[in-house]
């Protein structure tokens, strides 16, 4: 990481005007800021840990909307979490989390968790395979990319990889997958940028030099043993991994029978051991809960509860371990899933494939908060209703790249292939950026976007208020399909009105999503006969 660039940011911070791109400058005195920066500068090799929840996590039961609890309960009465059991979040009355996630609740209270509501993308795909590919490649619904967003970021930082790697500046793997297969998220244009450390047991095998998997005492057994030996020796990163791991002789306890915890324990050990690897991917599955996701008698318990409990306990143990190992400042983690699930539950006490869902981002430098409003739930939910997106998942990637990996704004487009709204997820201290103090959430009473008439039969007027700069309005249907983008350009500050012609559209609910700077708001519109 280029420390010189990082310090350049900080020097100019003192002389910037008070409003830039809709961000307001936090008034901070120079000395604590610089002191913090000094501390960060000496060892600021930042790490991102991506936690993939495979199967499509039911985000609506993970992050529960307390401010519209009645609508939530009505939409999925057979699996809705009991209001009294929802875990409250510090400094927040609108949102709570699943009862099994006491670890996340504690971390939130410690100021280390940011929850983003309704993260998705236009015209979402409901197929596991395609949706997974979209999230990992950072593509749009219609684009087929052969690279992963992580791979493109690492390729941007290390353009010659793998030629001349490892070297003195980059002695360690650029990315590590805990698992036997390197995730497509790390695929670069020329090569995969990551290596795989096989499951937990093999990792410990790697460290402790045990006998190789037993093969029979035959000719082919002998030859296979030989080739495997050479394969292990050829892995040029084996030594650096072993070296890093050897420096950590003790770790805090992790929950047993928890595959995610086992993976995160390895990550903690490697980070604490000084490995300069920037990105880690871990994963846990089983989230495709089409049926029986809760217990009939007690919806706070059951299969989904166990899954979430494991995720929460694993993350908490991981953070505690990192803290005790004194490397917690180096790490930001995030959970994601290929899609959320349907607003309305089905008759099997489960939920079917859905669209937008919340993401949990955690770390010492993460800004405490719930970004966005509670998910948009109709009064009478029907089987076709899906949660409309409030944030594009690529905005989350862009924000992390800029705020945590200190990628310059002008370079974000190279990696993410388009410009995306940045959100205040990580403290500006991490990269010496200006941090917004705007409440990006919609305060009660401020309507950034409305429409009239509503309901409408053919035309409706969209009225919106922008603070200036890039302003966008997207129109989605209830499947999340992007119907139109009636507004998408730079504005001067002010109020505007445009006409939206829905004459040819089928009757039903439509969402008008307004975006301006870090602000977004989703307006529900109803087209009738």
């Amino acid at each position, binding site marked *: 990481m280029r420390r010189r660039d990082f310090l350049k940011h900080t020097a100019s911070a003192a002389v910037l005007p008070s409003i830039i791109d809709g961000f307001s400058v936090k008034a901070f005195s120079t000395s604590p800021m610089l002191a913090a920066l000094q501390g960060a500068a000496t060892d600021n090799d930042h790490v991102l840990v991506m936690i993939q929840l495979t199967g499509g996590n039911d985000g609506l039961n993970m992050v529960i909307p307390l401010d519209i609890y009645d609508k939530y309960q009505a939409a999925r009465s057979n699996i809705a979490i009991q209001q009294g059991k929802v875990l409250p979040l510090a400094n927040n009355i609108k949102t709570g989390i699943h009862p099994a996630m006491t670890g996340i609740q504690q971390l939130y209270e410690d100021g280390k968790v940011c929850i983003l509501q309704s993260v998705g993308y236009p015209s979402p795909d409901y197929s596991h395979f*395609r949706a997974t590919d979209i999230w990992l490649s950072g593509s749009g619904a219609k684009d087929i990319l052969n690279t992963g967003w992580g791979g493109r970021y690492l390729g941007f930082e290390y353009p010659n990889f793998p030629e001349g790697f490892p070297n003195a500046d980059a002695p360690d793997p650029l990315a590590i997958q805990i698992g036997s297969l390197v995730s497509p998220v790390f695929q670069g*244009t020329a090569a995969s940028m990551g290596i795989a450390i096989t499951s937990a047991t093999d990792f410990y095998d790697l460290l402790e030099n045990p006998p190789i998997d037993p093969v029979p005492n035959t*000719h082919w057994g002998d030859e296979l043993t030989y080739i495997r030996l050479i394969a292990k020796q050829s892995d040029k990163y084996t030594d650096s991994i072993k070296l890093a791991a050897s420096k950590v002789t003790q770790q805090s306890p992790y929950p047993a029978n928890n595959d995610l915890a086992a993976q995160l324990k390895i990550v903690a050990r490697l980070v604490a051991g000084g490995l300069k690897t920037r990105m880690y991917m871990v994963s846990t599955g089983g989230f495709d809960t089409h049926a029986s996701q809760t217990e009939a008698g007690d919806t706070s318990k059951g299969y989904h509860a166990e899954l979430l409990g494991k995720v929460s306990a694993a993350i908490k143990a991981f953070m505690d371990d990192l803290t005790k190992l004194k490397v917690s400042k180096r790490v930001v983690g995030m959970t994601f899933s290929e899609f959320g699930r349907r607003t309305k539950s089905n008759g099997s006490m489960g939920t079917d494939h859905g669209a937008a869902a919340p993401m949990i981002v955690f770390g010492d430098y993460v800004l405490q908060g719930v970004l966005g409003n509670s998910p948009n739930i109709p009064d009478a939910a029907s089987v076709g209703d899906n949660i409309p997106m409030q944030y594009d998942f690529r905005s989350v990637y862009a924000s992390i790249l800029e705020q945590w990996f200190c990628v310059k704004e002008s370079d974000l487009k190279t990696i993410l292939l388009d410009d995306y709204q940045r959100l205040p997820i990580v403290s500006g201290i991490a990269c010496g950026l200006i941090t917004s103090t705007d409440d990006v959430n919609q305060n009660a009473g401020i309507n950034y976007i409305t429409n009239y008439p509503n309901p409408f039969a053919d035309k409706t007027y969209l009225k919106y208020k922008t603070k200036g700069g890039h302003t966008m309005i997207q129109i989605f249907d209830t499947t999340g399909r992007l119907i139109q983008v009636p507004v998408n350009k730079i504005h001067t500050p002010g109020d505007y009105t445009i006409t939206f012609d829905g004459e040819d559209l089928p009757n039903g609910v439509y969402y008008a999503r307004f975006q301006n700077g870090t602000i977004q708001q989703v307006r529900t519109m109803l087209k009738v006969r």
Partner: protein
Amino acid sequence: MDRRQFLTLSPTRHKTAKAPMGRTDSGIAPFTGAFETAQAVHLLKRALFGASPADLSWAKGLGSMDQAVDALLTPLATMPSPPVNNYGDDATGIAPGATWVNAPAYVRMEDDPLGQNRQRSYKAWWTGVMLNQTRSIHEKMVLFWHNHFVTETQTVTDLRYVYKYNTTLRQYALGNFKALTKAITKDPAMLIYLNGNLNGKTAADENYARELHELFTIGKGPDSHYTEDDVRASARVLTGYRVDENTITSHFDSTQHDFANKQFSDFYGAKTVTGKTGPAGETELDDLLNIIFSQPECAKFIVRKLYRFFIYYKIDDAVEQNVIAPLADIFRTNNYEILPVLSALFKSEHFYDPLNMSCLIKSPIDFCIGLCREFSVVFPPASDYMNAYEAWDYIRDFAGKMLQNIGDPPLVAGWAPYYQEPMFHEMWINTDTLPKRNMLSDYLVQGQGAPHNLKIDVLAFADQLSDPGNPVTLVKDSLDLLYRVDVSDSLRSFMKNSILLSGQSPNSDYYWTDAWQAYKGNPGDVATRTVVESRLKAMYKFIMDLSEYQLS
């Protein structure tokens, strides 16, 4: 049927040596077991470069193991067209696209670009011939003989001779070994390579004579007892052969020939080659070869080389007694015809003994060309010779970097993995070459990194399997063809669940089936194609990255 039953089935079991535990004592009695996928793949991978799904269907469709072996041991009916000028400027006036193999002689300059150009042209051409092989062991035998009767292009330098040498190997590859030895002795490239063309009566040059005994016919095993005098005598027999650069042939110049008698040692029955003057002096070569080939060690030496090339490097007492000796008998009985030996070997219990299978480390050529053939990698057509030669040369160069540069073995003894104790073929695999193997397979399966759009069409490959929509069957069929060893259920499950199903529930095989059928129903749609293609790429990359893929 278990292995013990299978081994006791053979009726003619006599004079067999007992092998230690985990080792085999099977011999050359005919294999009578079932000829199924495992046996067919084994046979194909040894006889050909790699085994494609189509090769497997063909082999099993022939009806029996005997018919499959007979088909594979059929010599080529027509020889491949010769290499052409793919390099442009040619000092001898050969036009681009025309063959240079009969070009006029030319005066070589320093930093001879024509020599280097033709060297690359020859090597690319030969690689192309192997890539396009028909279902015959012929091409593997050409490679075998090249490693036996070695010449190096960088020593011979005039590639017209090298091409001719290649045709000599090809002509006799499945023919008569004694005739091959005679032809090679007089081959212009060999005469240049081992100084035969300078060998004259004034002071005989022993280079070829020595190698004739040491490397080409008798070897240096414990039963080899030829003497230095035998070498000197042979050198005198071989005096007088000269190369004509205009006709690209050799001839016998009796004025350069030492026509005194040549006496051989007891090892050779104390025989004498009577010296002859004039053109008859050339027949002393026949006399010499008769003497050498009367020595029983000759047949054994060649059989051992065939064994190490096609079966395994370890020749213990059991193998020596149960396989080498009887095959050597067959070789001699058939007057050194090669086919009867190969036929007996490839039809034997020993060949199909599970203890003898799966243990050959693929040589670089076997690996690179086999990979391209198994996956039907598409190359530019031969008619587009500039691009075709470049693409073939890319593969040849990769194999060269893996230590097998065809046309130029490191020494006259051939490639070390075929003879160097104690590691033999393990020498192909080291911390430099193994990653290179992974790199080639990665480039091709990812469809990125190799020129001329060389890539593996994973969809076309999977489509040839019995039921690609069923992920369990897809994994099984792929492994049955690509691996020679069994893998654990947990690895198979991993491939299905973590790769094909992307970590979804293991009970959701239908996700893969649906995705495959969606692609088949609409193959032009990029999105549906990419969903299955990306997962297949990941699976085949995973399969080829594991050590198991290096075994043949």
